[in-house]
Structures are given as structure tokens and as C-alpha cells.
């Protein structure tokens, strides 16, 4: 697929690729940079179209790893270009080359603002995108109000509103004061009624950020979140384009459940019941399927649901279901699921009752301690450490110390440390402690510290 109207760029890319070695490449690139520098110096004579070509070349050269600082000004200046093809380049290349602290960026604020409040939808999108990706505190102060207006405007297409939502999220992250909580109490609730799932995807990310800093203001949003989960869980009114391998927007489901984890409790019994029904359906209804992507998406939802169940401090029966599921997961072949099973079991330990039921899976967890994948070994170690108590301390510490003999370098230090802490904490009697700690542990440790 050829680049339209930019033959010069294609030729340049081909030239670079045909270079036999790094030296040749450097020569070719330097030649081009020299040419571009010269042309830029004579700026008055450069049309926007020509500037565009050189700025794209600059980005390509930057991606190769070379320095193109001299061209930052030109990239930013294209943002003021009157026509879309050139303006687009200005916005995109600026986003790649500059960061929020850059002086030149500040100089563009007025132009950017004009694009945001102007009538050209394409220019609005370009501006919202750049500000959303690299906007800093100053952009936040100048533009937040205008961006909010676009998000809440019913005359804006979903295309603009979803960009406005995430742009506002960025501005909020840079300066939380731009969102006046009093005004947003109702607005956020209305935004969650959004029918367009693209906009809802973006809005939900905004919501997670807002609620994570201030639950009090958003209690009225809680039932809305549950309704969204119900709708998606039942695949009601979900356009085909938003189902992923048959699953209604897994990403909205995951984000919504994440948002719910910021609410300390669910007071209303009806809402609570409805949510538990949804969660129960997920826990019981997620099968392992052959298609890797569908499996991952379904399990992404399942693991988030597990986290939510644990957070809500559900009834014992549901907790047992969770542990049973996790017990299954830590023994499957799929390494991703094994890893997440171990990680989530560790999280479950924070809940008082779960420890006993988790201990039933001790044998499998010890097997995971020796897994070929270091990521999994680390999770297994964390879990063993966390589930250790007077009843199983002897077994676990012995197991850890035995493994220490053959463990790889990356694991040894942590293994030794954790074993020592557990031995000291749970020593059943002094003779056991002194044998384990003094005899085995010191010998092994001196091995380590000699390295």
C-alpha cells in the first residue's frame, strides 16, 4: 500500500533500508537532515505542503533513533496550518516528539484552543487527541472548560465526545481541580446512561479516575454501573461491532467492575442482589474455550469479577466458589491463567476466612514454586509466604529451604529472606528452629553472599 502523494518519503525509507550497515545509514540520514535543516532555515519560501513532507521524514528519522531537536519548531508550527493534511502532521508529529514540559507546546495553546472551540469537527478531533496524549498542567488550566463542553454537548458526534472524555481525563490527572465535584455529581450519572458504546468505553475510564479519588460524590452512579453490567452480561442491545469473539465489550465490563471496587459497600439490597446475580453468572458461566482470544477475554472478566467478589466480602459460599475456581486455575497448563490464579489467591488471603480453604491447595502451590517461568515462581513464593501459619509453617519452611539449594540467582535472595522470617515467626520449638535456621540456612546464605 503506497503512501499517497509522498513519493519522496517512500524513496527515503527505501534508501535507508538499503544501507548495508549502521555507518551507511548514518551517512544517508545525516545527508537528509542537512537538507531538511537548510530548507527549514529558509522558512518563508517553504509551503505547508513541503513542510509536511519534511516533518514526516523527521519523524521517521526520529524513530530510527536519531536526534531531530532542530525541527521541533516546524512540527509545532504546522499545527496552525489552515488545511487538514498539514495540520494533521503538525498534531501527530508534535505528539511524538514533544512532551508536556516543552516550551514550544505552550506557544501552541491558542491555536489548539481555537481548533477545539471551532466549527471544524476534524480539527476538534486532532486537537483533543494531542491534548489528551501529551497535554500538561497549563493545557489543563486553559482548556478543561472547553473540553467539558464538548463532552456534554448533545450536538457533538460520539466521535468527538469519546475523545473529549479521555482528553478531560488527562487534564484531570494533570490538575484535579478542573473537575468541580459539585457540578459533576449529576453529570457523571447522566454520562453513564450513554448508549453509544464507544463513548461509554471512554466515559467509564473517566469515571474510574473520578471515583477513585472521591467516592462520596458518586453514590448515585453505583446502580448505573450495575445496570451496565447486567445489560452487557445478558448481551442486551449490544451491537455486533462491540462484541469481541461473542463477548459484549469485555473492556467496558472490566472497567465497570473496577469502578465498583472503589465503593466501600452497597447499601441498597436490590442493587446488591442484582450485582451478585451478575457476578454469580460470571463465576459459574465462564468456560474454558479453545479460542485463545475468547478465552482470555472471558477470563479477563472472570478475574475482575473475582476481585470484586473479594472486595464486597461476599457470603462464605461465594468465597468458596472463588477459591475452588482459583484452585482449578493454578493447575492448568495455560501459564497466564496459572499466574493469575496464584496472584488472585494471594489477594484472597487478605480476607480472613479464606486462608483455611486456600491451604487445601498447598501441594499444587508448592509445585508452582518450581515452575519454569520465573513470574509464576515469584507468585507462588508470595502466596506460600502469605498462607503460612502455625499449622503448615514447618512444611512450608522446609520446602523453601530445600528449594533454595537448586533455586536460580534471581529467586535466592527473596527465598532466603522469606524462609528466615517464617522460621522465626512460627518456630514450633527451639530445636526445630535452631536446626532449620542455623544449620541449613546459614550454610546456604554464606554461599549466596560469597558471590
Amino acid at each position: 500500500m503506497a503512501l499517497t502523494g509522498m513519493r519522496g518519503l517512500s524513496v527515503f525509507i527505501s534508501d535507508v533500508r538499503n544501507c548495508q550497515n549502521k555507518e551507511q545509514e548514518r551517512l544517508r540520514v545525516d545527508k537528509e537532515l542537512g537538507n531538511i535543516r537548510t530548507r527549514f532555515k529558509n522558512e518563508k519560501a517553504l509551503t505547508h505542503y513541503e513542510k509536511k513532507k519534511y516533518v514526516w521524514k523527521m519523524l521517521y528519522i526520529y524513530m530510527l533513533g536519531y536526534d531531530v531537536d532542530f525541527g521541533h519548531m516546524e512540527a509545532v508550527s504546522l499545527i496552525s496550518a489552515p488545511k487538514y493534511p498539514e495540520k494533521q502532521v503538525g498534531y501527530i508529529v508534535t505528539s511524538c516528539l514533544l512532551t508536556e514540559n516543552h516550551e514550544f507546546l505552550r506557544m501552541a495553546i491558542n491555536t489548539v484552543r481555537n481548533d477545539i472551540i471551532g466549527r471544524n469537527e476534524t480539527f476538534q478531533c486532532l486537537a483533543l487527541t494531542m491534548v489528551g496524549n501529551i497535554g500538561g498542567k497549563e493545557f489543563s488550566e486553559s482548556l478543561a472548560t472547553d473540553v467539558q463542553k464538548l463532552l456534554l454537548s448533545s450536538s457533538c458526534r460520539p466521535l468527538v465526545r469519546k475523545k473529549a472524555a479521555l482528553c478531560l481525563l488527562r487534564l484531570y490527572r494533570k490538575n484535579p481541580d478542573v473537575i468541580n465535584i459539585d457540578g459533576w455529581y449529576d453529570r457523571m450519572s447522566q454520562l453513564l446512561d450513554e448508549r453509544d458504546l464507544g463513548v461509554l468505553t471512554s466515559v467509564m475510564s473517566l469515571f474510574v479516575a473520578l471515583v477513585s479519588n472521591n467516592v462520596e460524590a458518586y453514590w448515585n452512579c453505583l446502580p448505573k454501573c450495575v445496570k451496565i453490567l447486567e445489560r452487557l452480561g445478558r448481551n442486551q442491545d449490544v451491537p455486533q461491532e462491540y462484541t469481541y469473539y461473542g463477548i459484549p465489550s469485555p473492556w467496558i465490563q472490566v472497567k465497570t467492575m473496577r469502578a465498583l471496587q472503589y465503593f466501600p459497600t452497597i447499601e441498597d439490597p436490590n442493587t446488591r442482589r442484582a450485582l451478585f446475580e451478575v457476578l454469580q453468572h460470571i463465576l459459574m458461566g465462564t468456560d474454558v474455550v479453545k479460542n485463545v482470544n475468547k478465552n482470555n477475554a472471558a477470563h479477563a472478566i472472570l478475574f475482575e469479577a473475582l476481585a470484586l467478589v473479594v472486595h464486597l466480602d461476599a457470603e462464605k459460599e461465594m468465597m468458596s466458589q472463588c477459591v475452588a475456581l482459583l484452585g482449578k486455575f493454578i493447575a492448568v497448563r495455560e501459564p497466564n491463567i496459572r499466574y493469575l490464579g496464584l496472584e488472585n489467591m494471594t489477594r484472597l488471603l487478605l480476607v480472613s476466612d479464606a486462608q483455611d480453604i486456600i491451604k487445601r491447595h498447598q501441594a499444587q502451590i508448592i509445585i508452582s514454586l518450581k515452575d519454569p517461568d520465573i513470574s509464576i515462581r515469584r507468585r507462588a513464593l508470595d502466596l506460600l509466604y502469605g498462607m503460612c501459619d502455625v499449622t503448615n509453617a514447618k512444611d512450608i519452611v522446609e520446602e523453601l529451604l530445600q528449594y533454595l539449594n537448586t533455586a536460580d540467582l534471581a529467586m535466592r535472595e527473596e527465598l532466603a529472606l522469606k524462609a528466615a522470617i517464617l522460621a522465626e515467626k512460627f518456630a514450633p520449638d527451639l530445636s526445630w528452629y535452631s536446626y532449620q535456621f542455623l544449620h541449613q540456612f546459614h550454610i546456604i546464605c554464606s554461599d549466596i553472599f560469597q558471590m
Partner: protein
Amino acid sequence: MIRFILLQNRQGKTRLAKYYIPLEDSEKHKVEYEVHRLVVNRDPKHTNFVEFRTHKVIYRRYAGLFFSMCVDITDNELAYLECIHLFVEILDHFFSNVCELDLVFNFHKVYLILDEFILAGEIQETSKRAIIERMGELEKQE
């Protein structure tokens, strides 16, 4: 949130780099080098998630290209793994059976597509149809 997205080939050449956190050029180069080293040596039988500094990198290999996303330590791993896959499907659709060369010669289009998919380090749109349609709209304006 997504802190950065990298597309690198086996030799470590960067085919796409998008950062949603401010980093100086020297820091970017360091990151790209470290992430490449991290993912290129991982056994395909191991997990697609690996700790990176105080965050984690979710990655997957497609032919000769490594797609990596650095996310917060608390983010949902599988959701981002499938986010990567969705991105690949979009590219595949747009370029009709995408290959590395398409991404090299059309790098500017890849940035455009990415900007319709992810914004401010968050997923913006998950409908392939909506994104491809939008790209069509933009092409008409060129």
C-alpha cells in the same frame, strides 16, 4: 493506564513507539532497549506478562514483531493482552493481511489508527468497524 506502547522487531528496531507519560529522548531509548531485551528472551511457553520497573509489560509476538504495552501494576493483564490483539486485528483489516513492511512504509497511518484506538493511555474505541470507517473519512480529506 497504558504508559507506553512499543512495536519492535526481533533485532530491536522500533516500528512504533507511543508514550502517554512524559519521557526525555534518552529515557525513551533506554526503555526501548530494556523492554526489547526483556521480551525477546522470554520463552513462548511462559506468561505474556512480565514485571518492568514498578509497572508491568504485557506483550505478545506476532511473526517477527513484538507488541508491548506497559501498564500499571494493578491493571487487568488479560484485558490488555486482548487489547493488543484487537489492535493487530485492526491493522490486519486496514492493511489487508498486514506485514512488517506495511507498518514501515505507512508508519504515519499506524499512528493515525492508534490515535483512534487509544487516547490518554486508555482504550477509546473497540469497534473495528468504527475505527476503519473513521480512517476512511480521514483519507477523503487528505
